[in-house]
């Protein structure tokens, strides 16, 4: 039989595939359906948080920051509880990252606050001596894109049945309702910030990128 396989590369490849696929089946599948469901308490992102998430992706935060706490004592001591796959149920795309130039951000909302993020994004070295992270001053100038964030939320609600507007889940509603909610959420964050530029822009009805990004970072718990 092996002699025959050696002369038939196609069936040899099929044989290799079957053997490797079996290993995948027994290691991945048994737990997959269960663990991929949303963990109790995991909720879809609000519109403001989604706008922040889009900025996180746009500025490639995930190139240096992972969002995955591995089950090692040294990691859980520093970052908190290890990550479960169900916690990423509403992450599209997931932002696990593959390299930690900076620290993991999976649960950064537990141990950093709005005012800290503000100092840090303006000038990372002012709070973390020796940090090699660049400053993100443009986030205090550019406006967050609430419209696109609503479009994303509406799309995943319609196409993937993400449970917006369900009991105990974030409200989405119409665009005007969502925009009003985003401004209410942003007001809380702006109140905790010091930048007069951001505060005045908010009074004019503009949400700066930094506000949305902080909303997203604070939601990571």
């Amino acid at each position: 039989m092996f002699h025959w396989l050696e002369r038939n590369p196609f069936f040899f490849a099929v044989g290799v595939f079957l053997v490797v696929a079996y290993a995948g089946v027994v290691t991945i599948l048994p737990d997959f359906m269960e663990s991929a469901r949303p963990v109790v308490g995991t909720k879809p992102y609000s519109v403001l948080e989604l706008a922040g998430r889009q900025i996180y992706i746009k500025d490639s935060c995930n190139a240096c920051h992972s969002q995955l706490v591995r089950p090692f004592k040294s990691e859980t001591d520093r970052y908190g509880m290890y990550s479960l796959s169900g916690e990423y149920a509403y992450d599209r795309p997931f932002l696990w990252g593959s390299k930690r130039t900076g620290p993991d951000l999976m649960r950064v909302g537990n141990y950093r606050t709005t005012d800290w993020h503000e100092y840090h994004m303006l000038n990372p070295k002012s709070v973390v001596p020796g940090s090699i992270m660049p400053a993100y001053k443009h986030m205090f100038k550019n406006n967050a894109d609430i419209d696109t964030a609503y479009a994303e939320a509406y799309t995943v609600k319609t196409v993937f049945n993400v449970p917006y507007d369900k009991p105990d889940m974030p409200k989405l509603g119409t665009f005007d309702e969502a925009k009003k909610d985003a401004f209410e959420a942003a007001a809380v964050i702006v109140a905790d910030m010091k930048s007069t530029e951001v505060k005045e822009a908010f009074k004019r009805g503009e949400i700066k990128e930094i506000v949305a990004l902080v909303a997203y970072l604070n939601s990571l718990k």
Partner: protein
Amino acid sequence: MNWLNDNVNVLALMGAAAILILTIFVVGKYMRQMQNDKSSGELTKDNWDGIGEYKNPLPIGWALSFLGTIIWGLWYFLVGYPLNSYSQIGEYNEEVKSYNTHFESKFSNPDKTTLMGMGEGVFLVQCAPCHGVTGDGMNGKALNLSKWGNEDAVVATILNGAKGSDYPLGEMPAGLLDAESAKAVAAFMFKEISEVKNTKHPELIESGRALWATCAACHGDDGKGMAGSSPDLSTYGASKFVVNVLGMGKKGMIGNMPKFNDGRLTNVQKLAVGTYVNSLSK
């Protein structure tokens, strides 16, 4: 030339010499074989792009270990892995359990030096990002801990008010007393209410006692915060106060301090942070 005295160097040289001699012998043997040997074996009928293959029987040892690995592989594929499934989380749980047991037995009764060392370590990881490596608050970005936990800090709090840690009685308004009275109350509080039981201004204790009613309205006559309605001042200046703030977080004048109650810090570690933080102002 004393590097021959080193055992590792001598071993490495001997190893290098042995490899060299073996290489010469082996290469020499095959060179001669290639020059002199004639093929005598029987060829199989396979022909791989002009290269033939001898019909050599597999050495018995190889054959047996090959068969053995096939049998073990089948067992591992069908029974070994699927039924005795290894779990990464299980290994993590065991690691944490053995660590915690070790930690608890080692630090069941830590002395002050141990707490200070541990507190500094935890402080640098968890507190320094906001309060600064030295605890100075980095130019007003967070509370300057070197000016906290003493009588001057109490005076400053009375004059400026405090937002507190979300206690039922809410924020403490600014300017409840003037500067002189505040100093007296602080002296009384440190001598009579707080665990510190010591004041820099013993002459002010009695006038402070008379003014204590202002504070007692919220903190209670004994300063213990009326069963959780407001901060317990009897622990002020001691580690327990810091432990409490770590658990409750704080909505400060400068910014918000997060709660540290998600299990990242053990009780001993919190106590250690308290000891270290209180030492910063002494």
